[in-house]
Each structure stands twice: as structure tokens, then as C-alpha cells.
């Protein structure tokens, strides 16, 4: 078989023509992702109400963000949400997956579907449904025998929202892990059992390393979901009671569209984007195979 490489390039070296193939995707990404991102960065250097002529303020918006104690509270809420959006779903997903590897479960497809269904429902619908369930006369109180207004309680509102996230994202993690486990060679489990490995050992030395890539994807997706959470909070509590469930995403929205502070909203958006990039990169690095 003969190859026809580019005139100067040795075989295997990427050819210029590759850029042509990349062009459509690159154009779309530039137009709808990169350009808005750069535009946001540009707007963040102005004081602008969204209608009249903006005023150049340089980095003043950023200085204010880092000086505002109030904003630290928002990121603290994000950290709490990450526990509910990421730690619990990934942990629960791994646990269920581990149980399944021990012995085949009858009707597994049905369970998997049920756990994944929340993913396919609109978030607003989910939020409204949970708002009913959390109401003082809702089903949550009926089950617990209490009459607490979960979403109106300064201590409980944030965990209540977080739990919805856990419920929502466990299915996603599970589907990822179940897909991943199918590519682990069954003989590894057989070998482990012959060597007398306990279920815990088996999980630790076979399942976990085999799922490294999937766990990395799950953690990335769920952490990002926690950081950029907006919809549930917006529909359920608007950040209340007080500011006890306020998150950066909500603050950006309010600044840009309610308060006419487009510049400072953009700067906060840039900070959040950078933070998400940094955390994603960190997760990617940590989950690399040890050399």
C-alpha cells in the first residue's frame, strides 16, 4: 500500500490539509464560543448599563470583585454545592457500580433508566416539582412528619437545593461508570478472586483504576455543574432566604440583566470562567495515569 504524503512531509507528520477539515468546527467555535468570551472580557473593562455609552474603567471591576467580602460568600455556597453535585453523585455512582460488578442484577437496564431519567427532564420542571415537594405541606414534610419550609430556612435551603443536584447527577455518573466497567477485562476480576481478593480489594485494585478516565469525566462534569449552578437557585429561591443560597451564576445574571451593571457582571463571569478552567485542568492533571 502506498501513501501519498504532502510533498515535504514525512509519513505520519500532520499535513496542512488537516486545517481545512478543522475549519468548519473552528469557525463555529470562534463565532459562538471564543468571540462571545472575548467580548465578555472586553465588556468587563467598562462600566456599562447595557443601553447608554459605556465608560472605560480598566481593571476597576476586577479590583472591586476581589475586595468584596460578599462575593466570597457566593463562592462558599458554590463549594457546598460541589459536595452535593460532585462528591455525593460520584461516590454513590461508584458504590452502586461496585455492587453491580459482584453479581449480575436482574432488571439492571430498568434501574439504569430510572436513575438516568432526571437527566432528560427540563431543569425548570424539576425545580418546580421539587418546590412542591419541599413546601410546608409537601411530600417531604409528610414523609418526615415535619412542617418545615425547607426553602425558606436559612440553614436548610442550600442543602435542600444541593440534594436535588445529587439526585439529578447520580444517574449521569452511574451511566458513565457502567459504560466504563464494560471495557475492564473480566479476567482481571477472575484473577483477583483467585488471588483471594476481598470485594473491597477488588474495587480498589481493579474497578477504580479501570474507571480512572470515566471518574475524571464525571468529576469534571459535576464540579462544573456545581460551579455554574444557576437554574435551580433561580427558580427555587432567587438566592434566598436572605442571601443564603446565592451563587456566582445568579449574581452575574442579576447584575447584567436587573441592575444594569453589565461591566461588573462580565468581570465576575470572566473570574468564574477562569476558575472553572483552572479546576478542570487540575482535575485532568490529577486523573492522569501515573507515569
Amino acid at each position, binding site marked *: 500500500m502506498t501513501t501519498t504524503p504532502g510533498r515535504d512531509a514525512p509519513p505520519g507528520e500532520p499535513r496542512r490539509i488537516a486545517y481545512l477539515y478543522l475549519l468548519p468546527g473552528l469557525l463555529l467555535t470562534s463565532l459562538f464560543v*471564543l468571540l462571545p468570551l472575548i467580548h465578555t472580557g472586553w465588556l468587563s473593562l467598562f462600566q456599562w*448599563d447595557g443601553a447608554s455609552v459605556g465608560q472605560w474603567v480598566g481593571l476597576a471591576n476586577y479590583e472591586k470583585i476581589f475586595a468584596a467580602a460578599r462575593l466570597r460568600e457566593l463562592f462558599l455556597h458554590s463549594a457546598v454545592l460541589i459536595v452535593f453535585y460532585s462528591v455525593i453523585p460520584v461516590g454513590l455512582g461508584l458504590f452502586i457500580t461496585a455492587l453491580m460488578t459482584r453479581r449480575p442484577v436482574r432488571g439492571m437496564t430498568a434501574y439504569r433508566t430510572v436513575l438516568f431519567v432526571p437527566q432528560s427532564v427540563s431543569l425548570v420542571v424539576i425545580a418546580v416539582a421539587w418546590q412542591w415537594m419541599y413546601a410546608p405541606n409537601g411530600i417531604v414534610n409528610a414523609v418526615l412528619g415535619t412542617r418545615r419550609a425547607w426553602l*425558606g*430556612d436559612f440553614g436548610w435551603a442550600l442543602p435542600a437545593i444541593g440534594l436535588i443536584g445529587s439526585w439529578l447527577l447520580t444517574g449521569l455518573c452511574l451511566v458513565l461508570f457502567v459504560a466504563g466497567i464494560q471495557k475492564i477485562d473480566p479476567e482481571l476480576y477472575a484473577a483477583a478472586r483467585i488471588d483471594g481478593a476481598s470485594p473491597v480489594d477488588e474495587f480498589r485494585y481493579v474497578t477504580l483504576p479501570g474507571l480512572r478516565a470515566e471518574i475524571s469525566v464525571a468529576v469534571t462534569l459535576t464540579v462544573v455543574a456545581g460551579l455554574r449552578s444557576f437554574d435551580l437557585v433561580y427558580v427555587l429561591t432567587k438566592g434566598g432566604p436572605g442571601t443564603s443560597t446565592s451563587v456566582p451564576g445568579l449574581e452575574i445574571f442579576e447584575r447584567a440583566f436587573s441592575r444594569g451593571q453589565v461591566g461588573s457582571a462580565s468581570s465576575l463571569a470572566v473570574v468564574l470562567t477562569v476558575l472553572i478552567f483552572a479546576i478542570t485542568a487540575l482535575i485532568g492533571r490529577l486523573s492522569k495515569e501515573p507515569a
Partner: protein
Amino acid sequence: MKEQRRRLGAGAAILAASLAVGACSSLTPGSSSAGKPDQPATIKKLTPDEVRALGDVTLTMTDFDPAGQGLGAALDKLVAQFHAAYPNVTVHRTSKDFNSYSKTIKLTLSEADAPDIAQANVVMARTLVPAGLVRPLDGYYDAYAWRSRYPSSVLDLLRAKPDGKTLGDGKYWGQAIGGNMVGVYYNAATLKKLGLSVPRTYGEFERDLQVAKDNDVLPVQLGNLEQWPANHVLSTLMNVTEDPQVVRDWIRGKPGATFETPGIVAAAQTLRDWEQKGYLPANANGVTNDRSIADFGAGQGLFYITGSWQIPRISAALKDDGGFFLLPPKTAGGPAAATGWLANPYTISAKSRKADLAAFFLDYLGGPAGTTTAVAGGFLPFGDLPAGFRQSRTASDVTAAWRAAIKDNGLVPYLDFATPSLGDAAFPAIQSVMAGKLQPTAFAHTVQENWNDYHSGS
């Protein structure tokens, strides 16, 4: 190494390309969209004959009164009536729900083909006026004698300085059909059962609350999950504990005005006291406004402090037992004061080429011809109602209270008109005050800081 450099190169190329695209439009945000503040001063008051002689014309208007509901339906009827009187003029109305509307109105009016007429509340006006997107209406105010339509407490906020921050001075930016107002709805059957009558002083009102509490009746129904409903309770209390003019001056941005007054702090303290004494539902912060209105309609609660926009629901649920009064003053017979203002002012776009016709239409909407339709749709009228006009018990109570407030020049506009971000600053803080997490003085300070930030231009 080589690979990395190439990646860098590609990145730089993308960056440069995007900047170039960005540079095509003018780079300073808003510079291409802002309207021209200077309008030709020549305005004309059209006569009905002149309007009929215009030939076929279309006026476009946009508002946040979605079709089918009270105000929206009333507007549709008014538009149809106008078209019947002037068949050559077609008014084309588009509406959005309030949330989407308030977030897109700046863009809508920045378009080259902006609608001729656009609804705007005070907060929207604060950005539309300095951006030059709406036309000053002073000429039309003179020509149509609109000033005499409203009490001076209402007119204040219809005028804005060019920066949009100080109101009550400068040019008129809007005109309106009618108003709305917050007050105390009561369940007349429950009141009677408790052996009480409509209170004439604030002291009597508080005594009624305690009587209700002692008889295991919820004194004041409230659902505050959305954060804004309790603001209506607080501002209503402020009308008793503070001079309305102090609050009005503060809202319109009078230099040196402050929210940190003993009267305002006392109102916040009263709200907290009500919470502690069990006058409010224990879980008010976790119940939706909608739910609480339904509960009140089902007989749970003696009083409900909310706006005239709830007349249809409360009168439908309580029938002749749905009564309404203004929170009474400290001494019997004192001047009536209430939180209330225009329901929805209309502006004329700076880009409109049919401003004279638009003004003629607005005059029609707010004039006697429109009053009955407007009232049927839920607006509170500034003009007189025709003799024999039938209203529900609730609506006629509200209308009577409205007349009293206007007569005493006692309308105090909504607190969140004070700055574009006041709601964000104050509403969550009111929840915190109710829960005892924020002291009333600290609350007043938080709100005043927001005001200071806005007026110091940061």
C-alpha cells in the same frame, strides 16, 4: 516545542481575527445603539379630524401586560375602541412577561425600527432616559394638560434629570392609564366572628392582630419565597411610622436623603416583632406568594397586605367578604397614606416618527373614554367613574381607599424604584430581618449603602 509554538500561533490568529470582527462595530459598548437625546422641539397636538386625515397608519407598541390577563385584556379592548373611533389607525401591540420585558427593553428601543410606544417602569426609565432612547414629553404635557390628571405625589417620579438618577425634576418621560396600590385586604366574615370592626387607628389594628392570635386565627397571611412580597408589608408599615414625604424624597434621589431614619427602622422592627409574636406564618419565607393568596382565599388568615392587582383573585375567592382598607394612621382621622403609583407608564420612543400620533393615542388611553375599560381590567382610575358603574365589593373598597390616598396626596411610590439594584439589596435583607438574622438598623444601613453607591456614580 514546535508543536507548542504552532498552537500558540493558532491561538494568536484566532484572537486577532475575533478582535478584528469585534472592531467592525464600534468598540465602546452602547456607542452604536444609544439614541439621540436632542429631539426636534416642534410637537403638535393633533385634533381628531387631523388624525382621521392621516390615511392608513400603524402605531407599534410594546408592553409587559401579557394578553388575556386583566390589564392585557383591558389594553386590547382600549386598542380596539380606539381603532373603532379612528379606523385608519391600527395599533399593533406586542407583549412579553415582565421578567423578559425588563431584560430586553433596552435592546428593543435601541433597534432602528423600535416600537413607537413602550411601557416602562421607573427602574427602566432610569436607564432609558440617560441613554436617550425615550422622548421627553413636556410639550405633550402642556398641549394635553396631562399634569392635571395626576396628584403631585405621582407626578414626581414621571420627571427625570438627564442622568436618570434624580427624579421629580427635569423632563417628563412617561404617561399612564391608571395606578395600583398596596393595602390591607381583610376577611370580613372572620373579622365579624372575632367581634372586631375595621380599625381606625394603627393601635386598633395591632390589637386586632392580637385578638386574632388569641383565637387561633392567623393574623396576617404572607408567602415570601419570592422575596418581594414582604417588601409590600414593610413599605406599608413605613407609611405609618415615617412621614411619606421623607420616603418619597429618598426614592426620587433627593440629595442628602437617607433611609436610616428612626421611622423606617421602626417599621423594620415592627416586621420582626410581628414575626416573633406569631402574627405572620412561621414559614412565610418558604411559601410561594401564589400559595399564600390561595390560602387567604380559602379563609386562612384575617389580613393580607398586598396590591390592588390581587383584586380579581381575592374577590373571586371571598366574594362579599373580601374587604380592603389602608393601614390606619396612628391617630384616627389622620391623612391616608399608601404605597402605590402608576400601574404602568408609557413612553414614546426617541426613534418614533409618529410621536404626535403616539401622544394622541396615549391621551386617549388615559382619558375619560378609556376609564371604564381600564378599571374593568384592574387599573385604579385617576378620573371619575361613570355613574352606576358596578364593581365587586373588594374592588369598590380598593377604589374608595385609592381616592382617599389621592385626596390626601398620600401615595408613596414603591421602594425598589429608588435604584436599579434596590430590590436585590433590600428584598433578601427583609427576609433576614424577619428571621432575626439582621438588625433593623443594620438593614436600613445596607439599603442606604446601595442608594449611596448609585448616587455617587459607582
